Each structure stands twice: as C-alpha cells, then as structure tokens.
C-alpha cells in the first residue's frame, strides 16, 4: 500500500516536470524558461554584466580594447584591421545575437523551421526569390577579393568566438543560460555564423529596399484603362517634380543607345499575388531623407550633412552604433548587426549617408516552355535550356517540404501557370498559364560590403566615388560632405539600360528585344558635386530632370518630402545644427496644403446650414479650415484630414480595385493633380456602386466629408482622445517577433508618410544623424531603440523617449584611445 501511495505521489510531479520540460502544444519549455537562474532571469542584466573583462583569444593576431561609453556604444581600438572586424563581430554578437539569427533566417526562408507551418508561404516566397542563391553568388565574388575576404572572415570569427564555436558542426560553447531570451521563448538554438549569413543579411536589406514593383498591376491597368488614360493617371514623369540632381547639371557624355521594342498588351489579367509576396507592404513605407549644405550656407562655415533612413521601426533596433579605430581607419556611425563596417557615418575627413534610389530594378518576363518538362524555353528563334534547384524547407513538428525552382537566364520562375493563382469561375479572363521569371539586380554578383569598407577610410571626393562604385543593389543616393568643403550626391547602383517603358509592364521573355543589354556605366549615374545652390539633397524622388539620356521608372517616387526639404534649404542661410534638427523633425503636410483648400471649397459651408444638430460638422469644418498643415502629435486636424483623404482616395479610384485582379491606384501626387485640375465630371470620379447615378468630384468630396463627420462622431462617443493625431496614427515599435511585452506602442510623435518626419504606424526615421564637418567633428544622432538587443537590459529601449521628443545624443567620436578610456563605463580587453 505505501508503495502505491509513494508511486502516486511521485508520478504526478514527474508528469508535470516532463511537460514543463518538453513543452506542450505550441508552448515552449516553461520549466526551463522559469528557471530562476538559467531561464529568463539569466537575461536580467545586472551591474556585473556591465563590468570590465579580459578575454583570451586563441588567435595570436587578435589584439584590441573595446571601451563602452555610458550609452553602451562600443569604441573599438584594435591593433590591425583583422582585430578590428573580429572585435566588431564579437561585441555585436554579444548584444544582438538573436536579431542576427532571425534576420538571416528570414532572408533565407527558414522561419517554418522554428515557427511551424504558418510560415511556409513566407519561406516559399524567399526560396522562390532565390535569396540564398543571390547570397551564394555574393560569397563567390567575395572569395576573389583577399582584402574583403579577410575582413568578413575576421568578423565571422569574432561572432563565432562569442558563440564558443568549436569548429565542429553546430557545437557551441554558449550555454542555455547565456542564450538571448528569444531563443528560450521560441525554443531553439543559436547556430555558428558564416560568410553566407553576412551575405544573406545584405540581400535581406536589398530585398527590403528593392524587393517590390508594380509590373503586374500596371500591366492590368493598361488593359483596363487603355494607353491614353493610363498615361494621364500614371505618368512616368508628372509635371512639377523636383529631382535630386538640379537642372544646372549638363549630361554631355556619350551615352549608350539601345533598340526599343513595343509594349505588349496583355489579353488577360494577372491575378493579385499580394498575399504571397508579403513584402509588398513595404512599398510606400520605406524611404529616407539626406542632405548636405556647403560652408557658404552654414553659420560656422563647415558643411553639415544629415541623413535619416525610414525603415520599419523594431526592437531590437536595426542599427548598432559603433566607433571603429585601427591604424588606418577611425570612423563612427551605425552598423547593421551581421555585417562588418559602418553603413552610415563619418570619419575625420568626410561624412556620408544614403537614401533609397527607388528606381525599379526588378522585372518580370513571361516564359514559354517547350513542353511539360520545362527543360527548354523559347528565346527568339532558339530554345534555351533551364536549370533547376531543389529547395527543402524544414517545418517544426512536421515533415519537410520541397520545392523545385526552375531557372532561366533572366532569373528564377517565381510564378508558375498553376491553378493556385487563379479563380476561373469568377474571372475567366485571368491569366491561365503565365510562367513568370523574375529578373532582379540583387541576383547579380556584387560586393556591397567593400563600399562601406572603403567609405570608412575615405579622405576626399575621389575616394568616395571609388568606394561607392562597388555598390550594385539596392541602388542608393550616396550623399557626401568633406571637411575640405566639398559636397556631392550620386545615385549609385547597377541600373539596366532600358527602352522607354521597359520594365514598367511585364516583359516578353521569348523576345530578345525585351532583354537587358547593357548597364549604365557608373560614371554616367546621376551625380553632382558642389552645386551652385549650395546644397545636395535626396528624398526618394526622381533622380534627374528629363534631359538625362537614360530611361528609368519607379513603383513609388516621392513628391513631397523632397520639395519641403529643398524649399527650406534654399530659403535658409547661416544654418546651424539646430536648424537641421528642426528640419529632420519637420511635420509640414505638403499634400494637405496642396489639396485641402480645393476640398474644403467643395464642402457645404456650415454657415449655410441652419440645422443645430451639426455640431461635429461645424467643428470638423472649422478645424480643417484653420489648420496650418502641420501634423503635430497633439493636433486633431491631421486626424480629420487623414480619415477624409483615405476615404476620398478609395472612392475616387474605386475603378482601380478588384478583390482578385492586381491593380494599383494612382499615387497621391497624381491624385492631388486630378482633384485640382481635372474637370468636375471626370469619368473615373464616378462611383461604381451607384450604377444609376453619376457622381462628380463635388459629390464625392461631400460624401466623403459626411463620412468623416460620422466617424469623428462615433469616435467622440467612445473615446475622444483617439482623435489626437499621435494616438490615431498609433506609431508602434514592435519587437521583431511581434511580442507586445517587448514592444513600445503609441509613441508620442507627429509626422506621417510623405512628411519629412516620416513617422507612420510602423515605419519612420530609424536613425537620425547630423554631422558638422568641423575639426573636431561635431555630430549628433539618435535611433528609436537602444544599443542592447536584450529586453532584460535598460539599454534595450532607452533611446525611444529621446527619439520621440525630437532630441539627439551627442556622438562621442574620440581621436585618441586615452579619451575613450577616460570616458569608458567598462572595457573589454582582447588578447591573442
């Protein structure tokens, strides 16, 4: 009997321990997580974790000190380049290991392995885009360059040193207690770092910045609207644009000609694939500002360079601040965890920054296979052979799945003519057998890391031009300022030479005339040095005026931020750092300023209405009429305008929407022009759903205004504070894995898309930097996060409030090691 009792008393805890240890259902190992010593509490950072340490390295070549300042920025002083990148890899891994892992996993389509089957579509998409293949090509290219290979290998070794990687497959010295918290919560293990992972990270950025287009949408629109209406509503080059390169620039070089071809009209619609290509939502969201003013325009007589890239705001932050010092280099700025060097920053002589070129470098070709085997496809008079690659996707708690990707010389076949992409019953005309190959410049061999390696060491304009010549994809507007007074901007990337219209629509893969021929030579990419107006700037707008001899197109050029910036920089003299801070925080809503007067004029003036029940109507009308067009955090008007604009926009272009067929609406700039200039009864202003009625602009404007009043009324009844702009907008800085407890929500900040302070719901200025090129350099910067990737550290999100309130950190750029040492909170000493 006692044995039975004993057994019963024992079996219950054993079963509990078993399930707490091994997890149940989707729950991870709660027992291990709750362990007060090795579980989540091991990630609770204490003073001891922020103390000085000596670290012994197996490799005799490695020597250097890392001084952490009071913001936890590492100032790395190394005895040689190899040590420099080794130490950068080590400290980055120490503070950002999980982020490095998840970003490269996401790039290579390996999320199902840790999150389960829900991520299969995402992984398939990444595999079809051949992110890994692109990264492999980049590694091959790297191996031909001994200097860069040594630098990236040193970085890789540094990361692996932190991981305690023994060299044997996946055997790491790092223990469970030392894992970043996310590994514990998601229940998986870190892996050794590789050259390929660094390459994957860079392709991940290329995908974030160039991994979309609207070729299917525009192809469908051409069929729906016809050429005339299409060109009217979707012009490549609308009137009134303000390009990056001012018109003083003369393009007097001998340019490369190419044959043109006819744009083919599709006889069927392409089905929407937006759900599969999730990155589509990045469109209209990523962007950036940069500008540099020369010494004639500044108060202190030194150039000032500014940059703020608008990317998805996440925790841990995308950027990691660092100073890199070795005998031949001393630079400061932000790095991407996973890649050596500094991406945006400055050194003793120069400063540089980037914005996205936004030029379309991803095109689609229809492929005509010879037969079911898909081994050959038509190309002119001949049949070309395909290649194939089998992709295996591991899935958590499930069997792995495989996918065969077919290659053409254009690139991988992403969409096969299979039933997955069509619904014949509803839309019999939807493309039935469209095999689409993706051509993307991210697949070309290139060496982007080298650009940063050289920029970090650049001393003058020539060094800068040489450095950026290695940058192929994503195309970027590299801005430059030097202590000697030179300023410049260059749109750098590998851009194919296209015939007018090429790449706007889906191309014919069997017609060699539709193929790419040459690329624009680097020196002919749009650029200008020391322009007469005294400043260079870019904000993702058209790079040039119409005298530039090459054709280019974009899914999303910017029309507002650039004009606000250029107006301000033209107007201002005696510029100070504070002026530049104010410009980066500028909340002027130029779209509203250009469209609202016309809209208000169409609405019935409340003075003409006698009904007393229209309290809300009157207050909304008056608030909007008296608005100064600034999207300040605590205003009501921006909320009213945005609700109104969103409704109106959808009503105006309801023709360009379908549940199944891929369409895109005219952009805001062209919409504003249509509102201001088109006749009141323009055919597409009509509402489709009211078949027996014909609406005019005035009718739609009034309808949407009534709708606005209704919405405001209903929000007022529930919680009036939700009408305050920053709460209505709801800027959230989410943890990468979307865990709300690790995120910061409803950030108190103004601005919006198309505003210089481009802080939207999910995206915004991910790093604001201002550098005065004096001696010594006077620099400020801030990103909405913190230096540590550990949610258990106060350094995880300690910059968020500073960022939100529009303030900056002074950047401690030390010349001498003794200064770094003096100001160090703690030091890591590395000895080989």
């Amino acid at each position, binding site marked *: 009997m*006692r*044995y039975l*009792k*004993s*057994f019963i*008393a*024992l079996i*219950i*805890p054993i079963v*509990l*321990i078993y399930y*707490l*240890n091994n997890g149940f259902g989707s729950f991870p190992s709660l*027992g*291990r997580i*709750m*362990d*007060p*010593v*090795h*579980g*989540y*509490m091991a*990630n*609770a*950072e*204490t*003073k*001891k974790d922020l103390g000085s340490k000596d670290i012994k390295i197996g490799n005799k070549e490695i020597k250097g000190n890392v001084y952490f300042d009071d913001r936890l920025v590492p100032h790395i002083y190394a005895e040689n380049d190899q040590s420099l990148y080794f130490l950068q890899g080590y400290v980055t891994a120490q503070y950002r290991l999980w982020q490095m892992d998840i970003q490269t996993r996401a790039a290579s389509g390996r999320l199902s392995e840790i999150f389960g089957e829900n991520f299969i579509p995402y992984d398939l998409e990444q595999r079809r885009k051949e992110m890994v293949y692109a990264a492999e090509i980049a590694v091959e290219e790297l191996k031909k360059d001994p200097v860069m290979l040594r630098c990236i290998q040193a970085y890789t070794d540094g990361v692996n040193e932190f991981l305690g990687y023994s060299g044997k497959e996946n055997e790491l010295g790092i*223990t*469970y*207690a030392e894992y970043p*918290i996310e590994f514990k*919560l998601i229940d998986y293990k870190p892996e050794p770092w590789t050259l390929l992972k660094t390459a994957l990270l860079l392709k991940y950025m290329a995908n974030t910045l160039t991994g979309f287009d609207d070729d299917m949408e525009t192809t469908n629109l051409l069929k729906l609207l016809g050429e005339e209406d299409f060109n009217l509503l979707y012009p490549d080059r609308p009137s009134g644009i303000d390009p990056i390169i001012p018109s003083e620039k003369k393009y007097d070089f001998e340019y490369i000609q190419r044959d043109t071809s006819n744009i083919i009209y599709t006889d069927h619609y392409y089905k929407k694939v937006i759900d599969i290509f999730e990155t589509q939502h990045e469109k209209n969201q990523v962007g950036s500002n940069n500008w540099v003013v020369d010494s004639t325009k500044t108060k202190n007589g030194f150039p000032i360079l500014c940059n703020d890239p608008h990317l998805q705001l996440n925790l841990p932050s995308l950027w990691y601040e660092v100073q890199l010092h070795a005998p031949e280099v001393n630079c400061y700025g932000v790095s991407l965890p996973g890649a050596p060097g500094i991406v945006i920053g400055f050194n003793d002589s120069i400063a540089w920054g980037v914005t996205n070129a936004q030029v379309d470098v991803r095109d689609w070709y229809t492929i005509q296979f010879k037969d079911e085997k898909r081994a050959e496809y038509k190309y002119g008079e001949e049949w070309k052979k395909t290649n194939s690659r089998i992709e295996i996707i591991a899935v958590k708690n499930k069997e792995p799945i495989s996918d065969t990707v077919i290659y053409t010389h254009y690139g991988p076949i992403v969409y096969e003519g299979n039933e997955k992409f069509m619904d014949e019953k509803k839309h019999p005309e939807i493309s039935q057998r469209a095999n689409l190959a993706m051509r993307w410049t991210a697949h070309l061999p290139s060496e982007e890391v080298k650009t940063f390696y050289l920029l970090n060491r650049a001393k003058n304009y020539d060094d800068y031009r040489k450095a950026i010549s290695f940058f192929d994809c994503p195309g970027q507007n590299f801005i430059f300022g030097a202590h000697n007074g030179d300023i410049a901007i260059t749109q750098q990337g590998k851009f194919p030479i296209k015939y007018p219209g090429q790449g706007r629509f889906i191309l014919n893969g069997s017609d060699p005339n539709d193929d790419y021929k040459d690329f624009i030579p680097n020196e002919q990419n749009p650029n200008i040095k020391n322009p007469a107006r005294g400043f260079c700037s870019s904000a993702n707008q058209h790079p040039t005026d119409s005298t530039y001899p090459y054709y280019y197109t974009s899914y999303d050029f910017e029309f507002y931020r650039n004009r606000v910036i250029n107006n301000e920089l033209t107007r201002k003299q005696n510029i100070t750092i504070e002026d530049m801070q104010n410009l980066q925080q500028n909340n002027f809503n130029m779209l509203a300023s250009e469209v609202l007067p016309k809209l208000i004029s169409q609405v019935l003036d409340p003075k003409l209405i006698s009904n007393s029940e229209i309290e809300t109507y009157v207050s909304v009308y008056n608030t909007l009429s008296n608005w100064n067009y600034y999207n300040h955090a605590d205003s009501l008007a921006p909320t009213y305008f945005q609700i109104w604009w969103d409704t109106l926009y959808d009503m105006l272009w309801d023709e360009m929407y379908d549940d199944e067929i891929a369409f895109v609406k005219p952009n805001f700039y062209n919409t504003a022009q249509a509102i201001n200039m088109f006749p009141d009864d323009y055919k597409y202003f009509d509402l489709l759903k009211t078949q027996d009625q014909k609406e005019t602009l005035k009718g739609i404007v009034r309808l949407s205004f009534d709708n606005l009043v209704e919405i405001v009324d209903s929000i007022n009844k529930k919680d009036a504070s939700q009408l305050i702009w920053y709460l209505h907008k709801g800027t959230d800085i989410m943890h990468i894995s979307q*865990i*709300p*407890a*690790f995120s910061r929500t409803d950030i108190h900040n103004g601005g919006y898309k198309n505003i210089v302070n481009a802080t939207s719901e999910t995206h915004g200025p991910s790093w604001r930097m201002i550098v005065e090129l004096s001696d010594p350099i006077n620099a400020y910067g801030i990103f909405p996060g913190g230096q540590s990737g550990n*949610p*258990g*550290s*106060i350094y*995880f999100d300690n910059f968020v409030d500073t960022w939100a309130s529009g303030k900056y950190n002074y950047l401690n750029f030390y010349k001498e090691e003794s200064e770094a040492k003096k100001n160090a909170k703690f030091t890591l000493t590395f000895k080989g």
Partner: protein
Amino acid sequence: MKKFLMNVLIGTAICFLAQTYLQQWWIFAAITFIISLLLPYSSGIRSFFAGLFIVFISWMFLYIFRDMANDSVMSDKIANLFSMKSNYLLFTIVAFVMGLIGGLTSLSAYFLRKK
C-alpha cells in the same frame, strides 16, 4: 516542529545552491525527495509542507535577488508576456507550482519510508 524547521532550513540552502550551480531546473524535486528520505518527517502533512516551503522559499529568494539587481526590467516584461499584473505575482505563482511538485516528491519519499 524543530526538526521540521531544521529540514526546511537545510533543504532551502541546498536547493538554493543546487539551482544556482546545476543546469537542471527540476533539481529541486530530487532534493526534496532525498531530504525526506534521509531526514524523515513525522507525518505526511509535514513532509508535504516542508517540501513546498523548501522550494517556494528558495525559488522566491533566487528570483528576488536577481530581480532587485535588475530593477525588474526583465521580470516586468515576462509578467506582461504571461498576462500577469505584476512580476511578484508571476514569481509567487511559479514558486508555488514548483513548491507543489517539491511537496509531492517529499510526500512520496515519506510514504516510501513509512513502515
């Protein structure tokens, strides 16, 4: 009663050290079992509560030590993640559940010894 308190004191100290230096989070269950086996209790109820106290106290101590050094930065987020109002509520619930496990293994050893 003296023996009970003595056992709890010794057990808590051993449990505290074992959790700190050994990787197995469930080591407390083995400890309460062994203590109950080697230093037998006078009743089943006592053995159960001694086990519960040993685990509860040692886990609470371990949590609170680290938590104070960290100003609750980590535990507040984890409590939030598990939809708990406060980090101390989370500590208490977890330490109590682990305490129940420890109490049961202690009880099991008591039955095993009882003639």
